């Protein structure tokens, strides 16, 4: 009797489950995931490069919170790189979501105080990355693509990785010069403040 009931339940579940996904839709979801990942990585790299350029142009070291914002955005980049190298998975989007939430939390108090600096852009990028990661996480759960192997690294992927790694090294050098192995100077906050802010 139990077996019949179980069989009946399985049949019912099969009827309720969505039909097998057509391969083109899965392929489209995969293409979309790749495009979003590359777009986000390019945006993060451009913003971090702009932050470094502003830092050198003003000859002012960034404040510790600004360094933390950059670290958060680089962490978003790590999650996206995982997506590119090992294929899209829900856990990668979850990591991106975590890092984006952290970045937004750090950037939020700054964005209002220093509206003339890059902080509002940092906040907008973090929020945008979070929203896109949440959307892609939904897509990934609905149309799972993890069965497919990761794409081989193309020129764009390699260029983005080299750019992000170079930015991470430049930021590490900047942090080492500014803070060393001790606490970062809090006076850097005042030095970072843009004129007129």
């Amino acid at each position, binding site marked *: 009797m139990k077996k019949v009931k179980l069989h009946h339940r399985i049949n019912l579940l099969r009827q309720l489950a969505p039909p097998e996904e057509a391969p083109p839709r899965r392929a489209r979801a995969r293409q979309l995931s790749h495009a979003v990942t590359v777009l986000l990585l390019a945006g993060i790299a451009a913003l971090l490069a702009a932050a470094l350029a502003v830092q050198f142009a003003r000859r002012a070291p960034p*404040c*510790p*919170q600004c*360094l*933390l914002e950059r*670290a*958060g955005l*680089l*962490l978003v*980049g*790590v*999650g996206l*790189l*995982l997506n590119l*190298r*090992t294929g899209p998975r829900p*856990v990668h989007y979850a*990591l991106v979501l*975590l*890092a984006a939430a*952290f970045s937004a*939390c*750090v950037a939020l*108090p*700054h964005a209002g105080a220093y509206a003339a600096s890059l902080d509002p852009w940092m906040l907008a990028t973090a929020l945008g990355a979070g929203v896109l990661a949440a959307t892609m996480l939904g897509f990934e759960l609905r149309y799972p693509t993890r069965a497919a192997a*990761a794409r081989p690294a193309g020129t764009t992927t390699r260029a983005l*990785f080299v750019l*992000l*790694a170079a930015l*991470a*090294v430049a*930021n*590490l050098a900047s*942090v*080492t010069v500014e*803070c*060393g*192995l001790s*606490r*970062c100077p*809090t006076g850097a*906050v005042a030095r970072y403040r843009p004129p007129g802010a």
Partner: protein
Amino acid sequence: MMVLIFVLLLVSMLTAWLGRRRLTVSLFLITLLMAALWFWHQGIPASGLRL
């Protein structure tokens, strides 16, 4: 501590490129935890926020 955060970040970026998924996830979480601790102890007081 900030230097250590960036070193861990760089290492996790390299492991992500090498395709070491579990190692990258572990390093990522450790880095994020350290950054959050730093923010809690130094970043929030320095930014003038009161929680």
